[in-house]
């Protein structure tokens, strides 16, 4: 099928516009129109996923390996069949025995293998993930030079090893925030000192500021998604495809 055929592109885009309008109709009320497009989307996504899992993964990586490859010209085996791959099927079906009251213990075998695999990797990778961040939390709090209060412009792209006053202040704010937030999560003992109580309260406040900033960023994403749909309807479909404007 020629995916660049203008008629096909037009039909595809018009269907997209109808689906967009149908799904946004939920803003007014949950109607049958919305339900129709919602179910259509779910059905399409599930169907596509099944197809992709077969073509991208199972066909080459499992079926192809299991049955091998025959050279069409000579009729000889080009790649040998690795028949033990057949054992993967009963292993996979064992997971479905979770629905059997009598045999559900069998499903724990493949699930256990998967959990073990994941846990092993997590253990191995935990330090790779958080080690550098813990290391980066140790910051220089005293300026190494007072030649300039702020960081001078970069010359020839070379990083300046000095710590300037403005950087030291930034580092101090970072370290103070880190300690306050960590103190907020100490639940094993009761803080009696006013200083520690203040730290914990400050930790809660900076967390709130952080959540506010995250919320702002989240709002940008939600708007961007809505803007994209409107761009699709007004510019890509109406402006370019229907009216043929540049």
């Amino acid at each position: 099928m020629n995916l660049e055929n203008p008629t096909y592109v037009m039909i595809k885009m018009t269907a997209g516009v109808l689906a967009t309008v149908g799904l946004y109709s939920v803003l007014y009320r949950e109607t049958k129109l919305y339900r129709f497009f919602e179910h259509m989307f779910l059905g399409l996504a599930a169907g596509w996923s099944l197809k992709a899992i077969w073509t991208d993964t199972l066909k080459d990586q499992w079926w192809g390996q299991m049955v091998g490859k025959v050279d069409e010209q000579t009729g000889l085996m080009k790649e040998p069949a690795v028949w033990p791959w057949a054992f993967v099927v009963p292993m996979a079906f064992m997971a479905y025995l979770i629905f059997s009251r009598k045999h559900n213990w069998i499903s724990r075998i493949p699930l256990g293998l998967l959990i073990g695999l994941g846990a092993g990797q997590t253990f191995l990778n935990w330090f790779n993930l958080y080690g550098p961040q813990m290391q980066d939390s140790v910051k220089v709090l005293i300026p190494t030079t007072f030649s300039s209060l702020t960081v001078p412009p970069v010359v020839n792209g070379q990083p300046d090893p000095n710590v300037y006053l403005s950087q030291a202040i930034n580092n101090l704010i970072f370290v103070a925030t880190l300690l306050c937030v960590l103190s907020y999560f100490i639940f094993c003992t009761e803080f009696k000192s006013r200083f520690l109580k203040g730290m914990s309260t400050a930790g809660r406040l900076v967390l709130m500021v952080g959540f506010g900033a995250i919320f702002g960023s989240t709002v940008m994403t939600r708007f961007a998604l809505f803007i994209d749909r409107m761009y699709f309807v007004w510019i890509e479909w109406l402006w370019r495809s229907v009216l043929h404007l540049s």
Partner: protein
Amino acid sequence: MSDQNTGPAKKPIGELLQSANRTFLYFILFLVVSLSLVVTQIRKVEVPTQPEAYTIEAYKILRNVPPGGVVIVDTGFTNSSRGENGGQMEALLRILMRSGAKFAVLSWVEPQCIEIARGFIRTINEERKAGGEAPYREWEDYLVLGFFPDGPTMLQTVHQNVREAWKTRQATDPSTGEKKSVFESPVLRNVQKIEDVHAYVTLSASGTMPTIVARIGKQVKVISMITGVMFPEQLNYFKSGQLKGLVNGLSGCVELEWLMEKGIDSAGVVGGDAPGKPVAAAFKGAKNFDRGMAYYLALHSALSLLILAVAVGNVGMWLTNRSKKL
């Protein structure tokens, strides 16, 4: 005698300001966004921006991939986050194709992602053809490695042996019409280990990046192009040096387009004209502003509307509280 006050009680102004009809607000948002998009389309509005350090670092790496250098594009988004990841993908493809870099696309998040990425490659190829440039050819210039259902394990294997991790992946060689191992393709022919790859770019709507960084972050430069939702938690990884570049949602996409237009001169200034070899050159005269800039005015209008709505609601609350005290 009839009662004179039978009509509905009039709401005080404070309460009125706090009880705006939600459907009405949606309608205003729809109007504002639609109008901004049409104005941008007609007037070709370019909202100025100042790229952040993390976007600049991402651009420096991508712009300096040598011709023939290999980049892995790990796509983890579907049409649901096209508003942010779509523009990022288009900018990424333009940079790679104009630099002559080769790239391989894979996904382990969602099977649809591969088809979505193919659509973007098709679009940019059409643009190249229309501009008189040679389109990128599958097998010769880029590869589609397909979907991996168990991404963490695949990446763990890539960490140890990239050839083992992708050994079953095949693509069609157009010269013979035969399916061959992806390592026979000009794209991955010289890749013996993951260190031979110039950058690993992940485009995602969710938190896939830590899985990548934990496994191969020390071997290859990882760049994350993400939605604004995920940005705050990923900034830590850039600050600690685990991520070499970061592109934050729609604003990051605009920054990337801005850098493509303006470049970074030899003194490290965006849009500067210092003599000498630029740190990351611009693509002068090419189509750099596209999806990101097309949405930017609408984003500003929508955010202004939101701020206005929050301000009106707060004024209403203040008026209500004041009238209660009186």
